[in-house]
C-alpha cells in the first residue's frame, strides 16, 4: 500500500513538472537595421519591444545593425533554428531573406515591416505614416515665411515619396503658395550627410526643414541656422529645442502586443496590415509652444477628422508636378496605388529618381 502511495506521489510530481514545462516561455526576436540608440526608426521599434518584454511568459531578444541581404538571412535562420515563435524584421531589405527562411520553418511566425511579400507563416505590416506627415505639413506650411519647405529624404522609394507628397498636400492645405524642395541623401542613417543635405536646402531659402531620415542631423542643421524643423520617428525636440515644431511619430507597442497575443492563442493569420492614426500606430508628437494656438487647433481638428475617417489624405483632385491630374476629383486612391506611388504632387521640387 505504501509503495502504491509513493508511486502515486511520484507520478503526480512528474505530471506537475511536465505541465510546467509545457507552459514554456514564448520566444520573440526583433531584428533591426540600425543601432537602437539612434532616436530614430529602430529606436521606435525598440520602445515597443521593451513594452513586450515587460509582459509575463515571454522571452524577447533583439539584434541591431544587421545588414540587409545575406547577413539578415543568416540571422533569421539562426532565430528560427533556435525555435523562436515570433520574429519581427523591421527593414524593407529583410523581405526576401525572411521569405526564404519562412518557407523552411513553418512553425515560426514571421512579421515583416514595410514590404509587400506574404506567405503562409509570414505577414507584413506598416503604418500610414503619410497621415501624420500630412498633419506635420500643415504645421510647416503655417510657420514658413519664405514659403520654401526643405525635405531631407532617404531613398526614392514609394514609402518616402508618399510621405513627401502628403507633407506637401498638408502644407498646401493651409498655405497654397508653399513648395517643398527635396534632396536625396541615399542613406537611412548618416548624421553627417543628412546634416549637409539640410544645409543645402537652407542655402536655397528653405526656412522649415523636414526629414525622412533616422538621424537627428537635419534637426541640428536647422537649430544652428535658427530656422524651424519637423522631426521624424520619435519626438526629436531634445536635439533641436529651438527649432523642433512637431514630429510624425511611430507608436508600435499596441500593435505588437496584439500580434503577440494572436500568435499565443493560435488566431494569428497571415496578411497585410496597414494601420494609421485611427489605430494609433502613427501620430503627432506634442506641438512646440512656438506653434500658435490657432494653428494647433486647426491641425488637431484635421487629426480627429482623419482619425474618424471623415477626411482622406490623398482624395482627389491631386495633380502631379507636370500639372496632370493623377487622382481625379472625388476619387479615393486604393491602397495598391498608394503603395506603388512613384510621382510627386504639384508644388514639390525635385525628381523621383
Amino acid at each position, binding site marked *: 500500500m505504501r509503495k502504491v502511495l509513493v508511486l502515486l506521489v511520484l507520478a503526480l510530481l512528474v505530471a506537475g513538472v511536465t505541465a510546467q514545462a509545457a507552459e514554456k516561455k514564448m520566444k520573440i*526576436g526583433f531584428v533591426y537595421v540600425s*543601432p537602437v*540608440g539612434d532616436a530614430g526608426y529602430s529606436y521606435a521599434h525598440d520602445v515597443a519591444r521593451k513594452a513586450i518584454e515587460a509582459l509575463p511568459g515571454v522571452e524577447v*531578444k*533583439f*539584434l*541591431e*545593425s*544587421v*545588414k*540587409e*541581404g*545575406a*547577413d539578415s*538571412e*543568416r*540571422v533569421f*535562420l*539562426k*532565430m528560427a*533554428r533556435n525555435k523562436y515563435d515570433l520574429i519581427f524584421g523591421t527593414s*524593407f*531589405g529583410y523581405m*526576401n531573406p525572411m521569405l526564404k527562411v519562412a518557407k523552411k520553418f513553418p512553425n515560426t511566425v514571421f512579421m515583416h515591416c514595410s*514590404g*509587400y511579400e506574404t506567405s503562409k507563416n509570414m505577414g507584413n505590416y506598416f503604418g500610414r505614416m503619410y497621415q501624420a506627415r500630412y498633419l506635420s505639413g500643415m504645421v510647416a506650411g503655417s510657420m514658413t515665411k519664405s514659403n520654401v519647405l526643405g525635405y531631407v529624404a532617404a*531613398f*526614392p*522609394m*514609394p514609402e518616402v*515619396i508618399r510621405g513627401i507628397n502628403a507633407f506637401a498636400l498638408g502644407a498646401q492645405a493651409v498655405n497654397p503658395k508653399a513648395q517643398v524642395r527635396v534632396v536625396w541623401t*541615399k542613406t537611412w542613417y548618416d548624421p553627417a550627410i543628412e546634416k549637409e543635405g539640410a544645409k543645402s536646402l537652407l542655402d536655397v531659402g528653405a526656412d522649415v526643414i523636414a526629414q525622412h531620415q533616422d538621424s537627428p542631423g537635419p534637426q541640428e542643421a536647422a537649430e544652428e541656422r535658427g530656422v524651424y524643423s519637423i522631426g521624424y520617428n520619435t519626438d526629436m525636440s531634445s536635439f533641436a529645442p529651438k527649432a523642433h515644431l512637431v514630429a510624425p511619430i511611430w507608436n508600435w507597442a499596441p500593435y505588437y502586443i496584439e500580434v503577440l497575443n494572436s500568435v499565443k492563442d493560435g488566431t494569428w493569420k497571415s496578411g497585410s496590415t496597414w494601420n494609421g492614426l485611427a489605430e494609433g500606430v502613427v501620430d503627432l508628437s506634442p506641438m512646440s509652444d512656438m506653434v500658435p494656438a490657432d494653428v494647433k487647433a486647426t491641425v488637431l481638428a484635421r487629426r480627429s477628422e482623419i482619425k474618424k475617417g471623415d477626411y482622406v489624405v490623398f482624395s482627389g483632385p491631386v495633380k502631379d508636378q507636370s500639372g496632370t491630374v493623377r487622382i481625379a476629383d472625388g476619387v479615393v486612391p486604393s491602397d495598391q496605388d498608394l*503603395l*506603388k*506611388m*512613384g510621382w510627386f504632387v504639384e508644388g514639390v521640387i525635385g525628381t523621383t*529618381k
Partner: protein
Amino acid sequence: MFDLTIRKRQESLGWTAVLIYSGAVAMALLFSAGLLFFQGNSPIEGLSLLLEGAFGSSYAIEDCLIKAIPIYLCALGVAIAFKLQIWNIGAEGQFALGAIGATWVAITFPGHSSWVMIPSMMAAAFLCGGLWGVIPAVLKLKANANEIIVTLMLNYIAILILDYLVYGPWKSPDSFGFPMTQEFSSGAIIGKIGETNLNWGLLICLISGLVIYIFFKFTVMGFELKASGENVRAARYARFPYGRLVIISMLLSGAFAGWAGFVEASATLNRLQPTIMVGYGYTAIVVAWLARLNPFYIGISSFLLAGLRVGVENLQLELQVPAAFGEIMEGLILLTILAGTFFINYRFVRRPRP
C-alpha cells in the same frame, strides 16, 4: 646598463610565428573578456557563446563558409595586385561591376539551363569586374595616375551605376517601386551543395585559389609578377614587361572581385539590389594583408573573420550586448595581430653601452 635596439630578422621564424599570432589573438580575446566583465556579463560564458556561434555546430560552420566565400574571392583578387605593389583599393567597385555583368546576362537571356547561364554569367562578371580593374591600371601606366585614388573613386562610380540600374531600367515591374531587379530564373541561380545550405560558389573559391597558387609558384609570369613587386627597378632592368604585368594583375584582381559579386547576386540574393553592397571589398584588403597575400592563408583568414562576425551575432543574441561590441573585438584582433607582425619581422637586441 644596456640599450634596446630594433633589428630586422634575417632568418624565418617558422613555428614561432604561429605562437606569436596565437598569442596576439589570445590577448585580443582577453581584452574582450575584460570588456564583457565590465558590462556585467560572464567573460567565459561570452567567449564560449562566441566560439559556439562560430564553429560549434555544422550549421555554424556552414554559415561561416557561406559568409567567407565573397570575402575570399575579393581578398584573393586584391592579393594579386598587392603582390605587384599595385594598391588596388577598388575591390568594392569591381565587385559591383561583376554583379552588374552577371545580372545583365541573367535578366537579358532568362530561361536557359544552368549549364549555359552559369558559365556565361561567370564570363560576364569576369569581364566587367576585370575591365573595371584595368581602367586604373591604364591610367597609372599612361597618365601616371595614383591607383589608390583612382580605384577608390571608381568604387563610388560603380555603386552609382548599380543604383542607377536598379532604381531605373532594371527595376522589376512587380516590386511596388522598390529598387530591385526581378528574381533570376532558376537556371541563373547557383545551386546548393547537396542537402546543405552551402552553394557551389565554394568550389569557385577552391579552384581560383589553386589556380592562383600554381600561377605564382610555377609560371614565368607569376614569377615576374612577384619579382617586380619586390623591386620594380630591378624588374625593369631585367626587361620584365612591367606594363603588361600591371594590366594583367589588375584584370585578374578585378575579375575575382567580380566573381564575388556574381556569387552574391546569384546564390545569395537571387537578384540585384542595392543591399548587395556590404563592404566585402574593403574587408578583403585587411584579410589579404593578415594572410600575407598567400592564397591558402587567405582561405584561413577569411574563414576566421567570417567566424568572428557570425560568432559575435550569437554573443549579441544571447547576452544582448550592443552590436558595436563585435566591431570593437574585430578591431582589437586586427590591432594585436599587426603588433604581432612587428615581432615576426623584427627583434629587440640588447646592446651594452660603450
